[in-house]
Each structure stands twice: as C-alpha cells, then as structure tokens.
C-alpha cells in the first residue's frame, strides 16, 4: 500500500504535466456515481444519526434540565465528528466497493494490461480521476449530511420534548460556528483520498479470477472504513491539541 501511495504521489504531478494521460472524460460519470447517486443514502444515514444524538441528548441532558443544550450537542457532535465519519463510512462502503471491484475486474479482464501496453499509466488514467471525484464529492455530501443531521436532532427533540421547531432552529444557528463547520469539513478531502487510494490500490493489486475480485473488494471496504476511523481520530486528536 505504501508503494502504491508513493506511485500515486509521483503520478499526480505527472498527470498535471500531461493532461492526456488522465481519463478526464470519466469525471462526470464518477461525480454522478460517487456523489449524486450517493446523497440519498448518506443523507438518510446522517438524519438517523442526528435522531440518535437528539434522543441521547434529551435523555441524558434532560435529567439535569438542560434540554436547551441538545441543539448545541447535535451541532458539535455532528458537524465536527459524526457527519464526516458517517458520510465517509457510507461512501467507503458504497463507492469503495464499487471502485475496487471495477478496477479489479479491469485487472482480471486484461484491461489494465491493455492500458499499459498502450503506454498509459493505470495510476494516472484510473486512480487520479477517481480520487479527484471523491475529493470533490465527499465535502459536499458531508455538508448536505450536516443539514440532515440537524433535522434528525430536531425531529427527535421535538418528538419527546416541548421544544418548538423555531426554538430548535434558533438555538442551532446560535451554536453553528465557522470552527465547528470547518473542523468537520477540512478532514473530508483526506478521508476521500484514503478511500480512493485504498479502493484503487486493492483493485490494481488483484491477481486471479472472479474470487480475487470479491476478496479484494471486501478488503477495500474493510480497509477504507478502518482508514477513515483512524484518520478521523488523528484529526480529532490534532484539533484537541490545538484547542480548536
């Protein structure tokens, strides 16, 4: 994986220097598949996580008569940590599997060999556009997920307390800060890159037939999710150290 990451690091400046070595035409399709097709599932996942945080907040903070702090809890927990994590996990499972199996199938059907025999570098041709599409879409999906997370928290809070929607929204806006938003969003390109590199790396490392495609796809999903959790933890630790 380190070897592959190094190859990608070398490929990126080369791709910029030789634009015809990258399959730019696949970008709209990839944006559609990774972003547009994924937003319903990432949004619903974030809505439900918002509901969970809302219920949890009401049940725990309610014991101290502090239900008014639930919107702040949802904003802080969801914007900073949960939304980027949940969105990346869903994208890692969904698009990570899709990208890994697509490239793995290309590998076993000799399409990767055909690319190389034509003088095209598979890393530049295939990996760069996929990583780029992920880096572009994951922040957007996370941002949309933030909105749905707030909606989920509001739904849960309104369902079991007397707080009105207006009061909830007002309290939410009072606690949304640039720092909360950016702390969550700034990590998403890194999470996207990790998903892309792990998925594409597993796809390109495939050897054998159909069984190897399945095996590599499974590995890609497991490693993507694990990688996402590790990177999120590192960012959390880093921001805690900086006091952000």
């Amino acid at each position, binding site marked *: 994986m380190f070897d592959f990451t190094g190859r990608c690091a070398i490929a990126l400046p080369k791709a910029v220097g030789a634009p015809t070595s990258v399959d730019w035409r696949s970008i709209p399709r990839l944006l559609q598949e990774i972003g547009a097709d994924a937003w319903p599932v990432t949004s619903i996942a974030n809505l439900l996580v918002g509901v969970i945080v809302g219920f949890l907040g009401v049940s725990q903070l309610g014991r101290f008569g502090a239900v008014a702090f639930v919107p702040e809890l949802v904003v802080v927990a969801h914007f900073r940590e949960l939304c980027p994590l949940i969105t990346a996990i869903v994208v890692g499972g969904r698009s990570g599997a899709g990208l890994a199996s697509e490239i793995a199938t290309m590998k076993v059907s*000799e399409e990767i060999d055909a690319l*190389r*025999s*034509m003088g095209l570098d598979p890393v530049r041709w295939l990996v760069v556009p996929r990583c780029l599409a992920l880096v572009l879409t994951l922040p957007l999906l996370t941002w949309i997920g933030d909105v749905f997370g707030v909606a989920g928290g509001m739904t849960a809070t309104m369902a079991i307390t007397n707080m009105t929607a207006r009061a909830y929204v007002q309290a939410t806006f009072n606690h949304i800060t640039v720092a909360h938003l950016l702390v969550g969003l700034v990590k998403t390109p890194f999470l996207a890159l990790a998903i892309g590199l792990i998925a594409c790396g597993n796809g390109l490392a495939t050897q054998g037939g159909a069984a190897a495609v399945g095996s590599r796809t499974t590995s890609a999903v497991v490693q993507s999710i694990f990688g996402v959790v590790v990177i999120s933890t590192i960012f959390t630790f880093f921001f805690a150290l900086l006091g952000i």
Partner: protein
Amino acid sequence: MPSSRAHIIVDDLRLGWGTRVLMEHVYFDVKRGSVFAILGGSGCGKSTLLRHLIGLERPQAGRIDIDGVGDPKNHEGAPPFGVLFQSGALFSSMTLAENLALPLTKWTPLRGSIVRELVLAKLGLVGLSPFSELLPGEISGGMKKRAGIARALMLEADLLFFDEPSAGLDPISAVELDQLVLTLSRDLGITVVIVTHELPSIFMVADDCIVLDKAAKGIVARGDPRRLRDESKIPFVHNFFTRSSPGASTEGG
C-alpha cells in the same frame, strides 16, 4: 523501407518470479514482416513470454530488443507495437469507437472528425464499422477480438502481438482472423507475433515459430512449423504438431 535487421531480438532471457525460474536461455529473433508463432503446451509460459516482450513484466536476466531500441519499457512516447489480448481487453465503459480512439487521442494531436474517420476506417478493415457505437458487452467474443485487432492497428505500428487470437472462436471466424493476420503481414508488411496452440492457424499463417516446453524450461525447437511437423525428431515437438499422445511419439516420424 524493410530492413534486414531482425525486428525483435531476444538474448539469453530468463523469466520467473522470485527464486522460481519459468524458462531460461531463451534466444530467438523475429524477422521484419514475418508471422512468428510462440507455441507450446498449456502452462509452459507462452503468454508470460509475450508479457515480457511487450514490457508488462521484467525479465530476471537477458535482453529484449525491439527495433534496435532495447527493452520495451525504454521506448519513449507511443508504443512501437499493438497488442491483442486473449479476451480482447476492450474497455467495457467505452464504445468500440471510443476504444479505438483512445490510443490516437493519447499519442497524436489528432482530434474530432479525423479521429472519427480513422476509427471507422480501422473498424471497416475488421468488418465492424456498423457496430462502432456499441459497448463491448453488446458484441460477440469474435467481434471483440476483431475490435481488439483494430485498436492494436490504430497507431499504425509495424509490430503486432496477438495472444491466442483464435481461441474460443468458431472455425469460420478463426479462418477469417487468420486471413486478416495474413493480410496484415503480406500486404502491409507488419510483423506479427502470435501466441497460440491452434494447429490449423499455425500452419496457415506462421512463417517461423519457437516451441516452448515446460519440462525443458525453454525453447525445444525453432523453425518453419510445417517443417517441424514433418521432420522434427523431438518427441514433444512431434506430438505437439501431430496431436499425438506421448506413447505414439516414437513411431510418428
């Protein structure tokens, strides 16, 4: 202008993975404009040798020289050869026309209608021009192979590598493919290197061949396949060309 220098020179090649040697002391050369066949039983390393010839794998030792440039990986710019892979290896997300246009748009400044015309001309050469907008998943195996040949021809390379071109084809399609290979070689002067074990194809198209043997870890015979069939005293070679079982090898002549 044809040159008398061999198109490919393979010098003391050793192939394998790690400590495992698949074949060694492999020497041969391929004449310009000829059809050269790499033959041998299943698992003897024919396709592996082809992968080394086109630069997809690095040999453990020895040297491959294509067109006097040396190692296929050393070629700057467009590859000096086209390759037909066993499955056709067309890009499944692209139409036939897009598959064929790819090497042109990558390696030449040509764009737009000129590319389109060249693509249709090459598809026409293999009888597929009406299918240019179909995806590889929408055409038959034989059509995929013909499209693969057309793609291999796009950069007008004078050297083509075909991996099992007739495998899995019906007899009529296989003969048509053989005739296409002959046309490419005889009429256009293209050097063709074929990996195959289809005997009718070998006798129809190949001018020269090498026979690989797994047990010998290398080449056991070299020459005109028709001559090898009729004159070789090597049991494996005789059995291979006459489709005899090992027990019948000594009587076969």
